[in-house]
């Protein structure tokens, strides 16, 4: 196995809001490691109780889960999580960056901002996953991901703890897959084996 950090063959960007922590825990415990992609997550959280989340998720996962640092290179096999009160962006040079620009869809971090910048930077090497959430954030971003040739997977609204976010994405975009959390995890594990 190669131990030198390497640029991922593709990035999986995930948006989650209401009910998202539980969903992410499930997802990260069942992701088969090592995988050849990197995962970047935006989750809406209370701005005060912030930074325990990467720790919490790190404990359940078999790989590195960290709060994204400024200008941190995205490395395959790692999972990066947003910081409350900052938008998280993907740069064309394969690093992560932040901005305190105005909230988008009343959200900071916003899933749209992550998805759009990921699509601009990684083009068709993006898989966007929209999980449970009680607002519309992510729908516009998913559209951009499709325009640039990437794929969009959406958690089945019937199974999501809050359905508004998956529904909004499905309404606006011709998505590639709608399914249970487990089915989405299977799809992601599938990508891991292709490359």
């Amino acid at each position: 196995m190669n131990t030198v950090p390497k640029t991922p063959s593709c990035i999986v960007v995930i948006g989650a809001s209401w009910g998202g922590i539980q969903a992410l825990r499930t997802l990260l415990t069942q992701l088969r490691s090592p995988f050849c992609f990197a995962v970047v997550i935006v989750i809406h959280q209370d701005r005060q109780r912030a930074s325990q989340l990467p720790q919490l998720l790190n404990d359940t996962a078999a790989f590195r889960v960290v709060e994204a640092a400024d200008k941190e290179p995205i490395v395959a096999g790692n999972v990066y999580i947003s910081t409350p009160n900052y938008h998280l962006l993907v740069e064309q040079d394969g690093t992560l960056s932040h901005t305190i620009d105005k909230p988008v869809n009343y959200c900071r971090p916003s899933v749209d901002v992550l998805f759009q910048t990921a699509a601009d930077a990684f083009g068709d090497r993006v898989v966007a996953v929209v999980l449970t959430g009680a607002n519309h954030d992510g729908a516009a971003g998913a559209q951009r991901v499709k325009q640039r040739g990437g794929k969009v997977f959406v958690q089945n609204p019937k199974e999501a703890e809050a359905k508004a976010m998956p529904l909004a994405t499905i309404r606006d975009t011709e998505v590639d897959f709608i399914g249970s959390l487990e089915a989405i995890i299977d799809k992601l594990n599938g990508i891991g084996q292709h490359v």
Partner: protein
Amino acid sequence: MPKYQNDEDYDIHALLEVIFLKWGYDFRGYSKASLTRRIFYFLQEERIDRIPDLQYRIVRDKSLFSRFIKDVTVNVTEMFRDPVFYQSVKENIVPQLKTYPHIKIWHAGCATGEEVYSLAILLEQEGLLERSTIYATDINRSVLDRAKKGIYSDSYLQQYETNFENAGLKGHLSDYFEKGYDHVIVDSALRKNIVFTEHDLVIDHVFGEMQLIFCRNVLIYFTRGLQSKVIDLFSESLDFGGCLCLGIKETLDFYEHKGKFKTLDPNNKIYQRTR
């Protein structure tokens, strides 16, 4: 391999080159993702279809360029952002400031001034404001004008009050404001030792011997190369023993001469220049 990933990437680089040549403002070292978002927002605002059209017009139209500066910089800020940080300032920096007969403070990238007045309130509570001179600078003149006036809409006041309480300060934030119809005005006593002035961190020079520099949430907009250059500038502008405060996503970890600094609070990004 081509140097640019796609035409849009090329257009943006070309635009930044032209702006530098014509107006002397240098955005080439800014992080592209946020800057690109802001440029597309600007195109929409100005109803300009394509970046090459903007490039053509911006060299011929000074007022368009002024609006460009105003719109592509991210000026979002708040009072007592990161309340815990202000607690740390009180613990780690204030005792040392008390030993100086006169204190010079620089807020680099102060935006509309909320951060400047936040620190001024803290200094006032510690009995330090009287002997402080505060320089508040930004690249964007229009936010400086607003900062100088110290007039704020009261729609965020609730959040600011909460921040104020969590920062562990005495009394109420409203004690420092005069109430207007839908806005508040910062007390003139807080404002009298503050000098607001234009300064561009990329091209302008060192700024006198400071005891304290705040530059929070500005470096996130720069690439690593430019960040290093700007940190050089700060270390030259700081007195020995002076402190540098960055935003919570910013760091000196990667900085080549980080040996010049001691970390006073790693979580709140408070550093002290020791050599």
